[in-house]
């Protein structure tokens, strides 16, 4: 990977809510074309990290470099136009708008709307095409997740941030979603995936970081992490 370009470099990032420190000085990087996963339990700081990259929360200190841009001082809407988009935790689709309206909003930063991107997303998620006139709030959880990912792809990002796409979904749907992420990777989009479902995430990702109460405790290639006894015990449910 070292011959490839680093797309995102996070250094000593600290984020706090009032006096509570959620992220305590983490550093990680993502190379172009990779799928990198951040694993961890509830409250480990995964969502906070993604929200800070997207500019929804301001960091206390540290830096987030994307290409040559410093993101920590940039507002959220500008970060999207640089090529980073996010499918947030809890999907956050616009419930009283139709599926297609949601998708078109995803392309808000584009001067001209590209119908080819929309048809690509409908290819990735045929369910969305069937339901394009339906209000997003009436979709099932899995379909809403597809919509959230599709909507994030509409801005034609170079880097896609996914916050727990498998949360609350039936196992068969989790499989579909991860299968789609593979397709997204093959299309050349770099993916930063935050997950609690460590096994599925590591099978898909090139590398992983493990976050525990705001600190990175393990990092490495997915294979190493899958084989590491500590990870197996704490995150993959295997007894030694």
């Amino acid at each position, binding site marked *: 990977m070292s011959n490839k370009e680093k797309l995102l470099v996070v250094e000593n990032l600290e984020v706090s809510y009032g006096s509570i420190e959620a992220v305590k000085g983490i550093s990680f990087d993502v190379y172009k074309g990779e799928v990198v996963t951040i694993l961890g339990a509830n409250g480990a700081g995964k969502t906070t990290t993604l929200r800070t990259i*997207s*500019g*929804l929360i301001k960091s206390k200190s540290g830096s987030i470099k994307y290409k040559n841009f410093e993101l920590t001082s940039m*507002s*959220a*809407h500008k970060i*999207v*136009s640089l090529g980073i*988009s*996010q499918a*947030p935790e*809890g999907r*956050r*689709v*616009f*419930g*009283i*708008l139709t599926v297609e*309206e949601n998708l*078109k*909003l*995803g392309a*808000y*930063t584009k001067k001209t709307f590209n119908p080819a991107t929309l048809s690509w997303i409908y290819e990735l998620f045929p369910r969305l095409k069937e339901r394009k006139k339906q*209000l997003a*709030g*009436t*979709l*099932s*959880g899995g379909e*809403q997740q597809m919509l959230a990912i599709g*909507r*994030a792809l509409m*801005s034609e990002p170079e880097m896609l941030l996914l916050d727990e796409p498998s949360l609350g979904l039936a196992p068969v749907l989790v499989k579909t979603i991860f299968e789609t992420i593979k397709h997204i990777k093959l299309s050349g989009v770099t993916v930063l995936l935050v997950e609690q479902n460590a096994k599925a995430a590591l099978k898909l990702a090139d590398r992983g970081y493990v976050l525990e109460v705001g600190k990175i405790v393990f990092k490495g290639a997915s294979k190493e992490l899958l084989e590491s006894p500590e990870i197996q015990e704490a995150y993959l449910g295997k007894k030694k």
Partner: protein
Amino acid sequence: MEIFIQQLVNGLTIGSIYALVALGYTMVYGVLKLINFAHGDLVAFSAYVGLVIMMQLAGVISSSVVIIVLVFIFTAIIISAFGVLLERLAYKPLRKAPRLSAVVSALGASLIIENGIMLIWGPRPKIFPSNIVPNINWNIGGVYIGLMQLLVLVISFVLMFVLYFFVNQTKLGAAMRASAIDQDAARLMGINVDRIIMITFIIGSALGSVGGLFIGMYYRGIYFNMGWIYGLNAFVAAIIGGIGNIPGAMLGGMLLGIFNALISGYLSSSWALALTYVLLIVIMIFRPTGILGERVAEKV
């Protein structure tokens, strides 16, 4: 029957004015979840500003059509600028503060504008000139409709149609709806929510300024604290229609105008305000979210 139709025409006229003002409340509520209590006073302010511009122009231009058009345009620009200023000074610093702080700030801004009007123009009512819009009335089968009424109806309906089109058919309108639903999700789409809030204040204030000018030109007498009563009625209209819902504000305004006119026609105008609140309470009991408010359940 003639009384009924006559009151219907009168009610639609007043209702259009309420609707224009109600849109300002409902749009700001939509994006900020804040009742902009200063909106009514901005409407009153617009009537005074409009009167000043009208008197200045009347000395220079002879065509009353040109004067009226210019008065509407200049007033809308000035009031929109004040709307943006209001948002910057009174609401933006409190964006992350508890809801109550912003409400108190809104009430404070309302008092400042109201008393500002009194300091500048005095506590006695001002009268709009009667010769700006010719006093023409048509008698259609016993029902009278005036030129001014026709103007109010036509201009209001055109403006509401344009607004409806803008919100539902344009990219910026979609961004406005998205920001109203979920600000953070809207930011993740690349929408500059601060800019959307500013545009909302511009549109709401401009529509309110048209309402304020109509009040001045239709009723002719304007007074410094009229923002309170017109604002309250328009606010009630927005609630009846479903606060945050744009067609709801239009519908609520019309309903309230017709209701008021029918009460005044058949009972007495002194009952109008009391019964307005009875109507509000009855609607709130049966449809707590207003007639068009929140029809769709969101699945989590």
